[in-house]
């Protein structure tokens, strides 16, 4: 079986840096955006950033675990999207708003 290797032109660290940037963007979006849907998309962004580093390491160390993990993450993300969107719809139905700071009845 011929050895599969990463293209020499793109070093491993680049993938990881890209992953870190995407993750940080997700975190920032989660923390600083107020719209629930944007927050939700930020979560997806973080998940995919993690997926990217999984796949990268999987290539690097010739292990299949990383692939499997990223599939799991996708499945969970899909489920989460279904549930999360349902929650968002319900919030909007009840409160007529998508401002995340308005939803704080669990305070104290």
């Amino acid at each position, binding site marked *: 079986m011929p050895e599969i290797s990463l293209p020499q032109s793109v070093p491993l660290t680049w993938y990881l840096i890209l992953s870190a940037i995407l993750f940080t963007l997700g*975190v920032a979006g*989660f*923390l*600083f955006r107020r719209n629930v849907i944007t*927050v939700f998309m930020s979560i997806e962004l973080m998940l995919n950033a993690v997926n990217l580093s999984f796949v990268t390491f999987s290539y690097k160390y010739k292990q299949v675990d990383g692939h499997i993990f990223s599939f799991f993450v996708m499945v969970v993300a899909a489920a989460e999207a279904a549930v999360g969107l349902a929650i968002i719809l319900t919030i909007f139905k009840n409160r007529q708003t998508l401002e*995340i*700071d308005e*939803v*704080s*009845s*669990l*305070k*104290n």
Partner: protein
Amino acid sequence: MQQLWLIPLLPLAGFALNGLFGRRFSKTVINAIAVGSVLLAFLWVLKSLNSLGAFSGGGLEVPHVEHYFTWIQSGVLNISVDFAVDRLTAVMLLIVTGIGTLIHIYAVGYMAHESGYYRFFAYLNLFMFFMLTLVLAQNFLLLFVGWEGVGLCSYLLIGFYFSEKFATDAGNKAFIVNRIGDFGFSLAIFLIAIHFGSLDFGSVFSQAKNLPIETSPGWITAIALLLLVGATGKSAQIPLYVWLPDAMAGPTPVSALIHAATMVTAGVYMVARSSSIFLHSPMALEIVTIIGIATAFFAATIGLVQNDIKKVFAYSTVSQLGYMFVGLGTGAFSAGIFHVMTHAFFKALLFLGAGSVIHALSGEQDLRQMGGLARKIPITCVVLLCASLAIAGVPGTSGYFSKDLILESAYQYAPWIYWVGVLTAGMTAFYVFRAFFMAFTGEYRGNKHPHESPFVMWGPLAVLAALSLGGGFINIPKYLEPMFPLSEGTLPGFVALTPAVFGFAGIGLAYILYVLAPGLPESIANAFRPVYTLLYNKYFVDEAYDSAVVNPTIDGSRSLLWRTIDAGAIDGTVNGVGKTARSIGGVLRHLQSGYIRSYAGWVVAGAILVVIVMGLKGVM
């Protein structure tokens, strides 16, 4: 097999029926069940004893044991539920079921107007069950079951009029004082299990017979003394006798059955049953004797001045039980059991007669409110006279024979005990006849309308009167000779004569003081005011116990156990844990802002912290 289990089970069935359904039964049905079950038990005792040959010459010299099932098996200790009959048990069975039947019949009349009718008879039947278990038991643990059971029934029946404070107090007192005795008894059982490896009477006593006699106190003495502690509780000996006089708060048939004829003699029975242990410890026997004679004497002196007719008889019971212990302690076990029997006859009769008087006077118990009742309730008067003659030890009556045997044995043991016993006999005759004369002679001093009791009450009284007079001719010591050998040797002639002389002297003195010169007792009491006060207040023993034991216990419980330990330490700890959690929570709740983004901020901060730590310490 003689189906001995039927004997206790019959009253138990009566208890179950009356206890569960009695509320819906008519009085006739309750009577039929209660009296019928005990009567059947009596008949079954007769039938069993007859087929075991107990009434013929050589029968039952070897115990007849029936094994039913193994109850507890633990290592070498094997305790089974066995019933056994030997000659001692046969005597006790006949006393318990015979007197029990008579008193049940009497109670039908006595309790006719009381509320809680079915409850009374259910308890009474339950008592019979436990008492018969106690008597039939073939090992110490089963005996202990019966022992505790009769204590329970005693408590329930003393507190029968539970709406009265003094009755419930008396019940509690009896129960708690008996706990002290039972604690000693259970320790004795543990010691027996350790040293003999068994609790079965056959095994324990055959081992005990081969042991050397302890000249200096050892573990046999310890067992014997702990058994004695149990006996002093149940049989009302110094220092635990204080519950018995108060126990008279119960209905009179209860006083007769439980607190005179049967339960209080359980201690005597137990000591006689354990005679092979006691005989190996001269010191224990000496203590039994001294406790017995002291109880007999002091209770008699208290009885001299009491004005409540039941109290007089209660102290007389304590005193007579003291005699029985003198019999046991001086080695005359059969004389002790003989006195158990004759005492059961005349003391049950005294109490039932007193009950008849009380019934006639609609509840009056004070002797000063009686007088001249001989013409109004003649039958009661005659039967009470029979009982009084018997307890005074008039020659020919039952009390004479048994008391005489005990005193003879006491004389052989130590003459001073004999003389104290004789003096006590004189006092006994005096106070019993004092009560008799105060109730029946002179003018009626009360304001009730005395009426004679119905036949259902005086019928049993008549039977008991016949037994009180003639019961002494049943030669129990001879019958028990295979178990308890009779002592040999002749005694000086005066030994048998003096108690009777003192008895007559007591009767004569009572006649002079309460019939011929009714003013005299008052002036004597005034002349010896301090002695009279001391006796009238029962030597202040109750007060002494209160200040020495009861009040310190209550105060200690209150200030130390309740306020300091319970409210202070335990509640303090529990509440402190709660308070701490609450105050920590009070600080932490500010984190719970309700804003999702602030939570996310904390998560990010935490994650960054983890990364920093990992960076500093290096990844595993």
